[in-house]
């Protein structure tokens, strides 16, 4: 008989006797209702109480409600049962997953409506590896509550480290993979290697001083802690609380490069960068020189294109401004002013000409008037003007004497004459109007 059923057989030995009595007194004439039978069985089964069993979790469906369902299988035999538990039970147990062996506190029960046997689970404890995982989970939660895994605390890795500290096993694949992959990408990379144990009870004792030594080295910009995978137990040093706190306290960025299948060591959570394997770490701690050069050329080219395009745009704009008519030919404005000036000047000249003409006519008129009244007009009519030697006009016979020298002014010249005789009184006979050119005697 399977062990789990032996437990129930012992627990149910007293009620089973009563079931036997019930069966012996039963006949087609003396029947019981099905509900009565199910209730009786339920009553008998539940008297069994709680019992600790060791079993393997083969199916676990986490639901949104409080009740969770899981299927447990006997460790040795092909017997499996359905169990229910409250979500709090699973949460308290730590990381319970399919395939894990657990110790569970079960209470058998019968579903009244279906008559199916089921088990209520009130406590689960991981056993073996499961127990180890539960311990690690408790540690993880404790450290997380302290804020050691806050993403804001993660320091950025330098783009190109001066020196890389490497903590790993001596002559290990992990050491070779980190160095080879980093060197392929950036040939000038420099490593400061500290070989330590990477599993077992004494590993942390060696890793801690190596970490402190590299953290204090000013030539080291980044520290890689590497190991090439292993079992859960092998990887325990990388979940050690002292190591986790030391990595958290380190000033130099730390890369976790622990190869593992499923169970992340706690180091992954506190490290500034988590690499999936040592090979991955080698690729992520240094840039690829070819990629960087290509990126640099592309960036330079794009910058130049951008600046050149901007200058070309601005030059086109400036050329368009300079080609505006007002800028190309400022004389256009001057031409307008010049035309206005010429028009005004023409008007000025016209007005001046008119004024001169008017004045000229007036002067001619005045000149004619003056000329009409001048002695010359009289002379032109044949008269003469007499003047003595002193130039005084002789207008009377009394103004001269015999023998006096006189000048006779005619229209076309002057005569010098001597007075022969002086005869006062008007002429005895009228003098005829002299003709031009005649002389007065």
């Amino acid at each position, binding site marked *: 008989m399977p062990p789990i059923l032996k437990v129930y057989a012992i627990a149910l030995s007293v009620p089973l006797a009563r079931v036997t009595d019930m069966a012996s007194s039963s006949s087609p004439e003396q029947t019981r209702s099905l509900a009565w039978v199910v209730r009786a069985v339920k009553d008998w089964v539940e008297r069994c109480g709680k019992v600790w069993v060791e079993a393997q979790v083969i199916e676990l469906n986490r639901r949104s409600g409080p009740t969770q369902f899981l299927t447990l299988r006997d460790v040795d035999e092909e017997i499996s049962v359905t169990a229910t538990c409250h979500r709090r039970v699973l949460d308290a147990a730590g990381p319970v997953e399919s395939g894990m062996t657990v110790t569970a506190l079960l209470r058998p029960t019968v579903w009244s409506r279906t008559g199916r046997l089921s088990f209520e689970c009130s406590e689960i404890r991981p056993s073996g590896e499961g127990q180890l995982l539960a311990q690690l989970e408790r540690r993880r939660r404790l450290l997380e509550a302290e804020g050691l895994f806050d993403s804001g605390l993660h320091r950025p890795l330098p783009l190109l480290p001066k020196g890389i500290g490497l903590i790993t096993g001596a002559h290990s694949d992990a050491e070779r993979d980190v160095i080879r992959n980093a060197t392929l990408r950036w040939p000038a990379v420099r490593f400061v290697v500290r070989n330590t144990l990477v599993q077992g009870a004494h590993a942390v004792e060696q890793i801690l001083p190596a970490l402190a030594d590299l953290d204090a080295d000013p030539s080291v910009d980044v520290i890689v802690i590497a190991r090439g995978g292993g079992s859960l137990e092998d990887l325990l040093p990388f979940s050690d609380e002292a190591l986790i706190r030391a990595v958290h306290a380190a000033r130099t960025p730390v890369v976790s490069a622990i190869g593992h299948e499923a169970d992340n060591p706690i180091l992954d959570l506190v490290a500034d960068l988590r690499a999936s394997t040592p090979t991955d770490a080698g690729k992520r701690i240094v840039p690829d020189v070819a990629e960087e050069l290509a990126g640099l050329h592309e960036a*330079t080219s794009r910058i*130049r294109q951008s*600046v*050149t395009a901007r*200058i070309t745009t*601005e*030059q086109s*704009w*400036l050329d368009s*401004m*300079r080609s*505006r008519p*007002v*800028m190309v030919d*400022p004389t256009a*404005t*001057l031409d307008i*002013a010049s035309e206005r000036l010429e028009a005004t000047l023409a008007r000025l000249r016209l007005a001046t000409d008119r004024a001169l003409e008017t004045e000229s006519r007036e002067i001619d008129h005045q000149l004619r008037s003056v000329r009409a009244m001048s002695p010359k007009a009289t002379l032109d009519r044949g008269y003469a003007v007499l003047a003595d030697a002193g130039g005084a006009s002789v207008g009377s016979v009394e103004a001269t004497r015999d023998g006096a020298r006189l000048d006779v002014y005619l229209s076309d010249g002057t005569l010098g004459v001597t007075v022969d005789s002086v005869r006062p009184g008007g002429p005895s006979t009228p003098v005829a109007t002299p003709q031009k050119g005649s002389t007065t005697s």
Partner: protein
Amino acid sequence: MTDQNQETAQDQVAGEPEIGYEQARDELVEVVRRLESGGTSLAETMTLWERGEKLAAICQTWLDGARRRIEDARAASENINDNTDRQA
């Protein structure tokens, strides 16, 4: 832009307090707008035009300087690349 024009531009800039490209450009836009809108006296027109020429020269000096700097940077980077290739 000829060397002579460039000298002129630099002469014009010389007496100018530090004036940025954008400032010169914006002022040039305003000068051209005022010239095109008309309604200014002859003296104002000539003053505006002279200012416009000066601002255009300032802008041109900036652009020429920018081009020269790009060419210098290119030449410098080509020298570095040549040296790197030789060392390799």
